[in-house]
């Protein structure tokens, strides 16, 4: 049951930032994650600051150099369907299309999607675990089949977002506004790994907000894709996934960015795979080598060893598809 809170709906960015200064104020975009967190008592709120009135941050605009600016309040459905995103940044459109269910995509925003809280069963349950300020991580020695195989330290969540890995692969940048002014952070540095701070998912301060996500222009010949594996076809989080942004020259890989979902506490860039394929043709041998490289550093827990095979499978499928042009973008 929700406890009582004040609800405000400021009509300007300035007013919104002012409201966020209140202690225990929570920013509310589409509310699809926020309300779940409040209902489950993961954190409380004295004031809910709805930013749904900030029309300036809704929608997608072209930048002068051929990139895109995506307002933080753009819905996931809009991101999925936007023609420019579909044609030039296909991985992001695919990632958005893989999020949750149609209803949640209509209601949820891209800003909220990259800021959402983890889905660890203990975190969402009645356990006062490390990330919630408690003493220990219950996933260690507990039910950890959905936890991470990379980057776990103290806490072993996986990052739930399907849009963040494509954004990292496409070298997107987050625009953040706070009392101190505006700053820009690459999406690849926006999420905080537990090795640095296990209490915080992003670099945002409580009184800051994301206003936009900026996609730099796509290099010519860019193919990008996002593949997600999950237990059922909709309304379910990634068990392992991969965003790929790749350019070829004469059939060999010129440049590639490979980012995994579902296997690490933050969108997980695999430099290992990138190195294994750059300068090569994506033949069976290279792909097999890349798949080996992808999981070489993996550290499974007791119950999530299957994610290693799964990730291998995803890497192989995606790279072979990229070579055969099955997923041009």
């Amino acid at each position, binding site marked *: *049951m929700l406890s009582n809170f004040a609800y405000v709906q400021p009509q300007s960015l300035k007013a919104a930032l002012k409201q966020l200064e209140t202690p225990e104020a929570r920013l509310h975009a589409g509310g699809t994650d926020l309300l779940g967190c409040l209902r489950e008592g993961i954190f409380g709120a004295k004031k809910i600051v709805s930013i749904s009135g900030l029309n300036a941050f809704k929608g997608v605009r072209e930048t002068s150099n051929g990139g895109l600016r995506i307002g933080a309040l753009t819905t996931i459905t809009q991101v999925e369907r936007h023609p420019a995103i579909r044609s030039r940044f296909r991985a992001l459109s695919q990632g958005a299309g893989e999020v949750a*269910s149609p209803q949640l995509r209509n209601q949820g925003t891209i800003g909220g999607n990259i800021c959402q809280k983890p889905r660890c*069963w203990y975190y*969402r*349950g009645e356990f006062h675990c490390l990330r919630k300020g408690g003493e220990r991580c219950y996933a260690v020695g507990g*039910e950890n*089949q959905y936890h991470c195989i990379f980057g776990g330290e103290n806490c072993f969540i996986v990052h739930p977002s399907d849009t963040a890995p494509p954004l990292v692969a496409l070298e997107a940048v987050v625009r953040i506004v706070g009392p101190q002014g505006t700053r820009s952070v690459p999406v690849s540095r926006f999420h905080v790994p537990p090795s640095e701070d296990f209490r915080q998912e992003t670099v945002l301060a409580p009184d800051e907000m994301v206003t936009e996500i900026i996609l730099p222009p796509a290099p010519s010949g860019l193919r990008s894709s996002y593949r997600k*594996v*999950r*237990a*059922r*076809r*909709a*309304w*379910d989080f990634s*068990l*392992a996934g991969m965003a790929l942004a790749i350019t070829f020259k004469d059939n060999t890989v010129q440049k590639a960015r490979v980012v995994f979902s579902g296997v690490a506490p933050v969108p997980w860039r695999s430099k290992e795979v990138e190195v294994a394929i750059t300068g090569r043709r994506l*033949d*069976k041998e290279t*792909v*097999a080598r890349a798949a080996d490289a992808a999981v070489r550093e993996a550290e499974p827990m007791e119950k999530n060893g*299957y994610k290693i*095979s*799964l990730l*291998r*499978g*995803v890497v*192989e*499928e995606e790279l*072979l598809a990229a070579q*055969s042009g*099955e997923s041009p973008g």
Partner: protein
Amino acid sequence: MKSNNGMIGKSIPRIGAIERLLGKPLFSADMELDHPLVLKVLPSDRHHARILDIDTAEAARVEGVVEIFTAEDIPRNHLTGIINKDRPLLAKNKVRSKGDAVALVAALNIHAAETAAKKIHVVYEDLPSVHDPEEALKNHASKVHEKGNLLFTRKIKKGNPEKAFEACAVVVEKTYRTSFLEHTYLEPDAGAGYLDPDGNLVIIASTQNPHYDHSELVSLLGVAPEKVRIVQAATGGGFGSKLDLNVQGFIGLALYHLKRPVMCTFTREETYRMTAKRHPLKMVFKTGADENGHLMAMTAKMICDTGAYGSYGLAVASRAPVHATGPYEIDHVDVECRCVYTNNPFAGAMRGFGVPQAAFAHESQMDLLAEALGMDPLEIRRVNALKAGHKTATGQLLNGSVGIDQCLEAVKPHYENALKTWLHGETDFAKQRGVGLGAMWYGIGNTGVQNPSTAHIEMDGEGRITLYTGCADIGQGSTTVLSQIAAAVLGISPDMLCMVVGDTAFTSNAGATSASRQTYISGNAVKNAAEKLADVLLTEGVDLLKRPKTDLMLENGFVVYKKDPDHRMPFSKIAARAAKRGIPLRWQGYFDPETVPLDPETGEGVPYATYAFACHVALVTVDVLTGEVTVHKIIAAHDVGRAIHPASVEGQIRGGAAMGVGFALMEEYDPSTTRSLKDYHIPTAMDMPEIIPIIIESSEPTGPFGAKGVGEPALIPTAPAVINGITNAVSARIYHLPANLERVLEASIQSGKFTMKEVA
């Protein structure tokens, strides 16, 4: 078959469908009562513990709290249960699982009720808990119930399987496991109650069995039967879980003491925590066949975990072994099924009562035998399929409708075509296709026990007819089907009938909406009542029309002379005359299928009067690199005897296949981690295959107009067909349901399929 005015086999508009589309039916939680109190249950947070003290003082001081009840407040019998009474309404002295209700708060609003529930201090002394049924049977195991952890054993013995195995060309022995499942009906349990002007307790609830609820409340409260009235509200699905007393007892208790309107609505989390689950089974099957694929012998050892309470556990533990042979004739059989208490959540009825679990095992065995013999899976099923004149494992001679052959025949072209063309169609490099079969049989009604149904029909002085039935329509459409049956007998259109359904003040016991029994059993009871009325109408017609009875018939509300349809008499006239002469126009119908109880040692007997049969074909694709399974198509042939309302039969088949896909691939309730829909995968529309229902009508002589049942059969063959399809695709078999991505991936790795196919 007497008269049938075209009403049978016709998909007339479902009674109540328009109202439901308009949002008119009232579900329990929507009842508008005068300032009702809300009820909140405090569940146990221990697996197994003695209750040393329940301190409600602080909770009682919460503003808005009206009363807090514990076991001591139950006026008469505190134990409930439809087959064996072992489940306390509120825990007395100890708790046996984390879902046990410990206390009940009645408050002015939900906030107060929830706050108070948190402030009830229960002092527990933990007892060792047991969570595995095999562990529970060991000597040192902690006792869940005083009388021990073995609740029940069912044995079926026929011939001498050990000897027969020696003569077999192939023998396959494997162990199969299934998981706890949660029904996940759309509407969480709910109910409302108030006192009528005479001081009677009226409880409106989401239920599958209002007359059972009535008997439990009378037993709990120790009041006269006429003091309690149960009304079935619009019910949003049940699948077996709403056969238990989920909220009705709490409402009755509060109403009894407080005498003011109350409501109890479970959250999804509460339905997950406090209502029944599907029994997980461990099944060791050994099956042997001769070189032609004829099944010679089978043995099975089954153990089912009923958790903390029996609920329908005995029924499951009886049905699973009775059906263990599958729809095949086997001369030598030895099956044993034990039903065991543990400290897990209690398991009860869920669509199929253990037969879906058993079918997973027997149909996997059939494919393994076919493989060992180099036979086609359809052929081995055809060779062994039961026929009229065969004897089942319980020694029952089948002489009525046995339509398994027709089901196999009906799927054959689809199956062969899939093998010939679809299987070899072009796929993506990581995809492998597979085709699988699953067959089943399912006894209609309860196993080897009496399970009658009654119905009443009444004609008033103006010739208007009302049908009274206690049969709960929980969405499957029984009210429509029963109206068609009565209408067909009386020669009227169903909309000329007034239906009174599921209200213990007016209807009589029709038994549970379970075991796929209502069309067959209540259908027969309704038919019986309608025939009595029809007979009176015809007899009276003789006097009025001056024509012999054999030349009269009922048509459109008239008694009609067959040779001259203009010579006729309206029901209203006959009714008026009968009323004057004191001839009763209210009749009771009754039907109890003929069964013979199973012998406790050999299982010999006649468990059911008739059986439904079915066969599904599943077309699946497996991604061998990720373990993802896509079910493309299910072809589902069902022998239902007679489809009284074909659209409803198809609806059951489609819904059953959907549930079967969930059972096969994803549904698993883990007692330690599953809290609500966010932790439990049921299939979404995106996971659904194309479903092609095929209705087979092998008329059942004892059925109403030849009908049997389809509710549970619809689900049973799907999972075996899907699993056999996966096996066909990846050349490795999965023995533990669900075949989730992790298990399929593992199977793919084991079989060496986890490699890229040659890339073009």
